[in-house]
Structure formats: C-alpha cells, structure tokens
C-alpha cells in the first residue's frame, strides 16, 4: 500500500480570497482611483462581496464540489481559479493547466464555425494543428454534432453548445478541470455520457472543481465541498456535512 500520509502537492491553493462587485449600474468610477489602484472606486454601500476570506486547498486528484444559492459567487470562484478574473483580496495559486467550462462555454466565438472554434480553443490551450487534427473527429463525435462542423456556433442550441464545450474541455487533457453546471442542461443520454467521462477522468487522477445544484452528483464525485454563503464567511468540509449544512440553512428557502 502506498504511503497515504505523504501529502501530494496541492493543485489549487486559495488563500483569504475575496472579490467585490458594484451593485449599481452607475459606478462611481474615480479615474484617479482606477489608474492608481486599478480598482473602481465604489462607496461601501454600493459594494457587494459575494464572498470574502475564502481559503481552501484542493489536492491533486481530488474532486471538490461548490454549492450555494444563486448569486453567491460560484461561477466567480471558478473564474478566479481559472485565472480569468482577479481577486480583490488574497491570493490564488494553481499548479497545472486548467480546462474550464464556465457558464456552458469553453470560450466559443459565436460567428466562427464549430470546426474553427475547436482549432482556435485548442491552439490557445497549446495544441498544435496536428495534435488537434488527431482529436478533432473524436471531439465532434462525442459531442454528437458531426453534421454541424461547419455551422457557426451561434446557431447551435444551448444543449449542443454545452456538449461541444464539454467535449473540447475534457479532451484538452489539462490536469485541472473546472465544471460549471454542465449536467443541468443536457438530456438524459448526455448526462450519462458526461458522468462516464467525469468518472474516467477522476480515476485518471485529474483534479476537479464542480459547481452543481445536484446533490447526488456532488455525493457521487466529490469528497469535499465548499459552501458559499452570500456575504458570510464560506464553509468548507466533507461533502456530506457541507450538503447537510446547505440544506438545513434557514436562509435557504
């Protein structure tokens, strides 16, 4: 039996992270502030911090679920980990490449065709044209959009888009996977296919951060959970406990 005590290098380390947004549309943008501090100046009242003081670690190969009500910052958290948003407080360290599927998109450009998007996205993930060629058919076949390879993605239905996005992201072979609500949109067959892929990847030792409202999915795949509570300090623990707290929360009606 391998020594279990040795802690593997963490895949994701989040330390005391917080982010704020402006509530009103008309932010008071102090140009001076913006240039000096790189932040928009907002009055304390108009600020909304979905979460603050968020700290957690995700070990390599671990799968962590993120739960919370709408607007509690689940997608924002994934964005922060993906490095496509910057926190206002704290630090985030990610060891390894990230494949992110946030809000059902892998970064599609609407007026490009499915084919062009696959090549564009995989080139941005560091694949050469030849490497993409090898994967292309598989990506399309899995997504079930073979007939529409040359259709602009903006004409895709949201389900088709989600399938394609999931297919691309999972084949980028990044060690860390961020998944936001994929399973919520697809039909039954697609959900089952997704589940098989996710299980495969987890047994491959990949790390996953999963946002979901589906308790059984969370129980099935995640060992730990993070419960983001609007404007309160987030909770973190074994998935069962976290789910229980989430379901028992009196705020949650």
């Amino acid at each position, binding site marked *: 039996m391998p020594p279990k005590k040795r802690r593997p290098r963490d895949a994701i380390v989040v330390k005391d992270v917080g982010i704020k947004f402006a509530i009103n549309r008309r932010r008071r943008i102090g140009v001076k502030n*913006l240039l000096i501090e*790189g932040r928009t100046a907002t009055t304390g009242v108009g600020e909304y911090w979905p979460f603050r003081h968020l700290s957690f670690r995700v070990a390599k190969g671990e799968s962590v679920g993120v739960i919370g009500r709408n607007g509690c910052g689940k997608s924002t958290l994934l964005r922060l980990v*993906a490095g*496509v948003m910057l926190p206002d407080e704290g630090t985030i360290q990610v060891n390894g490449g990230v494949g992110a*599927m*946030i809000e059902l998109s892998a970064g599609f450009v609407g007026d*490009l065709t499915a084919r062009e998007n696959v090549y564009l996205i995989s080139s941005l993930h560091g694949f050469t044209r030849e490497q993409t060629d090898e994967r292309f058919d598989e990506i399309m076949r899995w997504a079930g959009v073979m007939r529409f390879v040359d259709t602009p993605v903006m004409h895709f239905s949201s389900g088709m888009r989600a399938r394609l996005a999931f297919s691309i992201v999972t084949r980028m072979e990044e060690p860390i996977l961020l998944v936001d609500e994929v399973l919520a949109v697809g039909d039954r067959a697609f959900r089952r296919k997704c589940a098989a892929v996710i299980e495969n990847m987890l047994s491959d030792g990949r790390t996953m951060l999963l946002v979901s409202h589906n308790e059984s999915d969370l129980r099935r795949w995640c060992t730990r959970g993070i419960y983001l509570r609007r404007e309160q300090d987030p909770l973190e623990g074994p998935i069962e406990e976290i789910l229980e707290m989430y379901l028992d929360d009196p705020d949650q009606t």
Partner: protein
Amino acid sequence: MLVDRGLRHKYANSVLGYAWSLLEPALFISTYFLLLKIFHKTYPMYPLFIASTILPWQWFATVVNSSTGTLRANSRLITSIALPREIYPLADVTVKTVEFALSLPLIVVIAWIYGVRPSGYVFAWPLALAFELMICVGLALLISSLNTVLRDVERGIGLVIRALFYLSPVLYPLQRLAGSLRGVAAYNPMVGILELNRAIWFPAYWTGWRPVYFSAIGAVVILLLGFSVFARVERAVLKEL
C-alpha cells in the same frame, strides 16, 4: 508560441483578401486627390504625396479605432481561457500592421509611375516604422482597457482621430505651417513619423529632425503608459466582460 498561434488564427479570420488592402487606400488617395484638386491645393505628384503619408496614417487610425472593441469582441475567450490579456490588443495591432505592409506596394507602384526614386531618408524609415509601431501598441493597450470600463472613451476617440488627421501633416507638408505653429505641431508624435515617411519621396519638404525627437519620446511614453495602464485596469476590466 501561444501568441503566435492566436495571431495566425486571428489573421486567418480578419483578412478578407489581399485586394482590399490595396483597394481601400487607393480609394482614399483618389478621393483626397479629387477633393483637393477642386480646391487647387495640390502639390506636384500629389497621389504619391498623399500615399506616402496616408498609408502610415491609416495604420495608426485603424489600430486606434478597432482597439476600442478588441476586448469586448474577445470576451468569451478572455473569460474562458487564462492567457495574458495583453495578447488580444497586441494581436489586433499585428493584424493591422500586416495590412499596412500589404498596402505598401501601392506606394512603390505610384512612385514607379512617376519615375521617382527613394531619397537617402529611406534609411531612416525603420525609425518611423518602429516609433509608429510603439505608438500603436501603447494606444491599443491603453484604449482597449480604458474603454471597457469607461465607455465614453469610444465616443471621444473617433472625434479625436478625425481632428488629429487634419492637425497632422498628412495632406500637407509641415513646411507649410508658419514657424511658430510648426513648433507646436511637433509635439504631436505622429508629425515626425509622417514627415519621415514623406521625406523618402519628397526630401525637399523635410524640415529637420526636431519632430522626430518628439516622436521618439512620445513613442516610448505611450508604450510604457499603455502597458502600465492595462495592468492597472485589468482587474476592473475582467469584471466587466
């Protein structure tokens, strides 16, 4: 490596065909030629005169005009894949630079028709190109990031570019300005660049190196400003996308 691939993709999708790169400036030149012919304000070999400055000007103007939208146009990619955000405006500048390069044969053809050979100033041309590239990169970073948080920038920039077009010696040589005006005009970093471009074909209009010094200073300042503002505004920009 990543940047390069991103660029090739952009480039493949942006260039509608080589013909456009020649046709557009050619139409520009003929429009101004006709317009100014009517007002009897032309200079000898006016088509070459305009071509030598309007192509570099178009390079600058297209960069500035398109930079207002680059980040928003790429918002899906920016919010899905973690890459240095600078590459999006830089890729845009690269596309415009390639288009500029593709339009250059037009000048050569016009010069050949008139039988004009480039003067010794052609050796200083790389300076003009380098300064203009620096200005383009700096402004693209500056405007693309600021416009995302302050939409007013977009409205203002069109007007500024239009005004600057007439304030810069594109359709006329700097020589035509009175001495005092000339001194003021030299503060505009585009002046030295345009004058240098023109001197390649029309050394007689050259007024000295002073504007070029200002171009050099302006280019460095704008470039540094562009990178530093972009880095500072980035956090706010990402929340807007």
